[in-house]
Structure formats: structure tokens, C-alpha cells
């Protein structure tokens, strides 16, 4: 029954997520891609921060790491550098990745370590009860925005692209098959890849903003999302209020762990021995 069930920690189900929460849909995409790419589950690591999205690793039968709020990418960076053979997927909420974790996001993008990151953007702090996030649309209501949010949200792909990322994509949970492809391409990419996923939080966001159910929110996605290809044929008027999905940016750039491997072989074979070693007898440090 269900070939993909083997990737799940069945005894932890059903999940903690509310009915209709999009996080579970993204989780499905991840296991389909891992399965398709035939990655050895023993090599897969799922790293998350804190939030509803942050609970995902607990349900996936890989190496899983539920870190502190906002810091998933730095733990992932350490893991990847220490053991480049790991296939690391980092799952973050919008608050997690963009608010408290914003610095790590832009630096991971800049440093270009081979990680696949997914921001589950539900426009709200779901876990803590619906406060506005740096992704909440201007004017939307939240528990800390009782009069409507004054702050403009990040345009996530712009931010990450501006930080130097080598792969930036956006999808929605409604467009599930496309999302599979975007995540797959992110995982295939040698370098830092980011997929922003629009995902409904009916309880934290929808309720307060005239979208009572996950269905309404997914219908919104259906109506608003336009693939980059289609968008390129639309005029400005038509594009108003639309959200562009697909691979929004991609480029080739040196990947950090590979650069580091290169450095190591370069310096290991260096002939001259530095002053430091003469003084300290460290010339022998290779003995062990």
C-alpha cells in the first residue's frame, strides 16, 4: 500500500497540523522527489527551524534535525561542510527563514553551499498563533496587526536572488506537480537552491482574512499563480495581482564545499612549510 509510505514515520501520524494545512502537501512533494532521485535515505538529512513547518522532520524517516528558531541553515551548513556526502534539505517557515533567520538565508545564498532550502510561506507565524510575519501582505490582519499590517512583505525570490543564490524558484501547494519539479531541480542543482512555496494556513491567516478554509486559499493560489512562461506572454494589466511561479532565476557558480575540497588538496601538497610549523614543530602534525 503506497510505495511512499516507507519514507514516513508512520507511528507519528496523524500529524499535528490543522486540517488543510499546506505543510503536509510539501512533505509529500519532498518524499516523491527523494524517491524519484533514488537518494539513499540514510544520506538524506531534513533540517528545520521552529514553527508548524518546523515539525516536518519528525514525520520523515531520514536523518532529521529540528533546530532552534531561524537557525536551520547554519546547522545545515555545518553538517554539509563536515560531511559533503549528505543530501540536505532545509525546511523553514516564513517567520523562521525571513524574520529571525533572514541573515542566515542571505548568507547561505551568498556562500553557495549545496543545500536545498524550502520556505513554506504561509504569510503568518502559524505556530505561535497568527502574528504577522515579514511575508504578510500589507493590510492583512493578524493577532499583532489588529488594524491591518503596516509593513510591506519581502519579495522572497528578489531577496534571495539579490543575495547571490544560484537557484530560486516559487511554487504553490495547489500546483503540486510543478512543485515536485521545482524541488527536484533544486536538489539536482549543485549549489544553494531555494524554493518558496505558498502554502495555506487557514487557521492562522485565512480565518482573519476572509479565507476561512484551506480550499479557499488553494483556490486563491489557482487563480493567482501564473507560471513564468505564461507570464512572459501577459501584459502588465493582466499580471496585476498575479504571482509568478516556476524557476525564477538560475545561474552557475562555484559551490562552496567543492571549492573547499579543491583548497584542501592544494594546500596539503604544498612544498614549503610555513614559519608557524618551524617554530612549533607542527611540521609533524600530519603524523596521525
Amino acid at each position, binding site marked *: 500500500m503506497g510505495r511512499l509510505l516507507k519514507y514516513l*514515520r508512520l507511528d507519528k501520524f496523524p500529524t499535528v497540523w490543522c486540517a488543510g494545512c499546506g505543510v503536509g502537501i510539501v512533505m509529500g512533494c519532498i518524499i516523491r522527489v527523494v524517491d524519484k532521485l533514488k537518494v539513499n535515505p540514510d544520506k538524506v538529512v531534513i533540517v528545520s527551524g521552529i514553527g508548524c513547518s518546523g515539525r516536518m522532520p519528525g514525520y520523515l524517516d531520514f536523518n532529521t*534535525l529540528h*533546530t*532552534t528558531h531561524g537557525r536551520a541553515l547554519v546547522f545545515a551548513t555545518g553538517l554539509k561542510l*563536515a560531511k559533503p556526502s*549528505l543530501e540536505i534539505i532545509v525546511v523553514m517557515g516564513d517567520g523562521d527563514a525571513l524574520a529571525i533567520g533572514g*541573515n542566515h538565508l542571505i548568507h547561505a545564498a551568498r556562500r553557495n553551499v549545496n543545500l536545498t532550502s524550502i520556505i513554506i510561506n504561509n504569510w503568518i507565524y502559524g505556530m505561535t498563533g497568527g502574528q504577522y510575519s515579514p511575508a504578510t501582505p500589507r493590510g492583512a490582519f493578524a493577532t499583532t496587526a489588529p488594524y491591518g499590517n503596516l509593513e510591506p512583505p519581502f519579495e522572497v525570490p528578489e531577496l534571495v536572488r539579490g543575495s547571490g543564490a544560484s537557484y530560486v524558484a516559487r511554487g504553490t501547494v495547489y500546483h503540486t506537480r510543478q512543485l515536485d519539479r521545482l524541488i527536484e531541480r533544486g536538489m539536482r542543482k549543485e549549489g544553494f537552491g531555494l524554493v518558496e512555496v505558498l502554502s495555506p494556513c487557514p487557521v492562522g491567516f485565512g480565518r482573519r482574512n476572509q479565507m476561512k478554509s484551506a480550499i479557499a486559499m488553494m483556490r486563491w493560489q489557482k487563480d493567482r499563480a501564473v507560471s513564468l512562461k505564461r507570464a512572459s506572454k501577459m501584459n502588465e494589466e493582466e499580471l496585476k495581482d498575479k504571482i509568478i511561479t516556476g524557476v525564477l532565476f538560475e545561474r552557475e557558480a562555484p559551490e562552496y564545499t567543492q571549492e573547499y575540497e579543491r583548497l584542501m588538496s592544494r*594546500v596539503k601538497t604544498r612544498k614549503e612549510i610555513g614559519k608557524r610549523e618551524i617554530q612549533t*614543530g607542527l611540521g609533524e*602534525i600530519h603524523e596521525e
Partner: protein
Amino acid sequence: MEKPALISGNEAVAYGALAAGVRFFAGYPITPSSEIAETLSELLPRMGGKFVQMEDELASMGAIVGASLAGVNSMTATSGPGFSLMQENIGFAFMTEVPCVIVNVQRGGPSTGLPTKPSQGDVMQTRWGTHGGCNTIALCPWSVRETFDLTIDCVNLANRYRLPVVLLLDEVIAHMREKVVLPSFGGVKKVQRKKPTCLPQEYLPYEITEDDIPPMADFGEGYRYHVTGLTHDPTGFPTSNAKEIDQLVRRLYGKIERYRDEITRIEEEYLADAQILVFAYGSVSRSAISAVKEARARGIKAGLLRPVSIWPFPDKHISRLADQLKAIIVAEMNLGQMIGEVRRASCERVKILGVTRVDGELITPDEILTAIQEVS
């Protein structure tokens, strides 16, 4: 090897780390710790290790925990302001039992304070700095050579007890150069982590074992498990079962208490017949021993107690000594931190006098000698 070299405390940390098998360092520059990173940035890649400069100290601390989960001995180094920023993730390492070493080279405080000058203002923070009630191991060297040795000890203690361990230096020790003869790195004793011997499907990453230390698998070697900073049961998954929580938290905290004697490292000088004890750690103990010798020369029976392992605090030693002493002098470069611990442990059974200094200068032997004379 066995050739003498003139190196600083910070360099000794770097060499000690390499000797102990540290192969991952993540850090963010800060005076007076930066030479540790600088030295390792040069040497790590040559030994197959990784050096990475992170965007800040929060990131550095997170990265070493990540690297350690991959099975690599990991370290970071910082000073007060950065140490404050690491606190949340230090708590995470404690909760998830991920071995790692944090070097804190203390500089003058509070706040940005006196970046290039020594202090011992972070001693209590080392014990209590993170939220939620953790427990701590911290070692505190007084010489360059001991810095090398204790760095190795820290790595070993971290691996042995699955804990973040703090090496607490002060600016004097970090920047002071001394002649040392380092041992051959190959001969250095290394404690390996306890690894699981069971089948992956039977692995309990937070198993309640007889020794209170669960075996630790590396990510990527087939033991797929879950790590979370939430309260978790032996399987590693979140629990809100009061009993399981109680068991977890008490075990984590209790590990250190249980192995207290094994962890504790004390150095005593001239204590056998001492009537006046000088309690000092780090660079101040250099002044202290000097003062003690001078006092002896003047016929005063003084001695030195130096808590090499500053946490856990050597309560028992102090308590035992309290009855046989006339006075204890606690000399430290802060406004009274370990003196509180000494007070508690000795419980008014002996006169206690503090010698403090917070102006960025090392306490001098004279200041301590004056105090000795005062109470003798």
C-alpha cells in the same frame, strides 16, 4: 617534535584542538580570541579539516553543532559579546547532547567594554547564561601549556559526556606567549564518542542507559534518528509526558553531577599546612602563586587552590578545607562571582575576603599579598 616553541595561549588552543582531533571550526572574529580562528584557518585545511567563518556567533554555534552531528569534533571560539549571542544554541547542544567545544576568551565588560583587556566577568554566565536551566563543564587554564592540554581535555569531555564544554580563557592567557614543548600529536589521548552497537531499527538516540550517556550515531551512517530541542523521549521525538520529561531533564542535568569527581580538576599548591588559602583561577592564579610564595618567604602559611575545572564547582574541596583554614582569599577580575560559590561551599566557617579588579589590569601579586597579610 619535543622542540620548544614560543606560542600564545590562543595558538595553544588551535594546536590543542588539532591534536585532539578537532576537524571543524566555525567562528566569527572577536578580540581577543581571533588568533584562534586565524591559526586554524591556516592549519585546518592542511589536515583535512574545515574552517568556516560564519556570519555571526549564532551561526557559528549552530554550525558546530551541525558538524558534530555528522561525527566530526567541532569547536568555536569567541569572547563575551559573542558568547552572549551563542547562548541559545549552547542550550540546544546541551538539550540534544551534541558534543562540542566553545572557547570563550574573556575581555573587559560589561557590554563592549574593554576589548583588548582581560577580565573574568563571564564565569557565572558560563554556568547560567542559557535559559531553561542547563548544567555546565568549563575548564580554565593558567598557562600556555595548560591551555594546550585543557583544550584536548575539553574535546574529550565533550565526547565522553555528550555535552557542550567551555574552555574559559582570559585575555592575559590568550595573548601571553610562553615557551612550551608540545607533545607529539599522535600520542595525545583521544576519547571517542560512545557509538551504538545495535541495529539501526533498534537505536534509541536518547536511551536511558546505565551510565546515563546514550550512544551517539553520526548522521549519514544508517542510524536515521530525530534530534529536537523540544523535550523528547528516548526515541528522540517530542513528548509532553510529564514523566518522560522529568527523566530527560534530570538526566541531562544529573550527568555532570554524577561524574563530578571524574570531571573535577583541582590544583593545590602549598596547601598541606596552609592557614590562608588563596582561591584563584586563570591568569590571576599566576599572581596568586607569586603572592603565596612571597607570603611563605615572610613566614605566613599561605596556599593556593586553583579550580582547573571551574564548573562543576569544587564544592567538596572547599567545604573540606574550610574547617582547617583561617581565611580564604578569593581573587578574581570581576566584582565577585566565584566568591559567591566559595561562600556557599564554606558556609561562614571561615573568613572570606575578596580581591577584585575590573579596570582591565591583571591583579598584581602585591594586591593579593596585602590581603594575605590582612587576614594572617
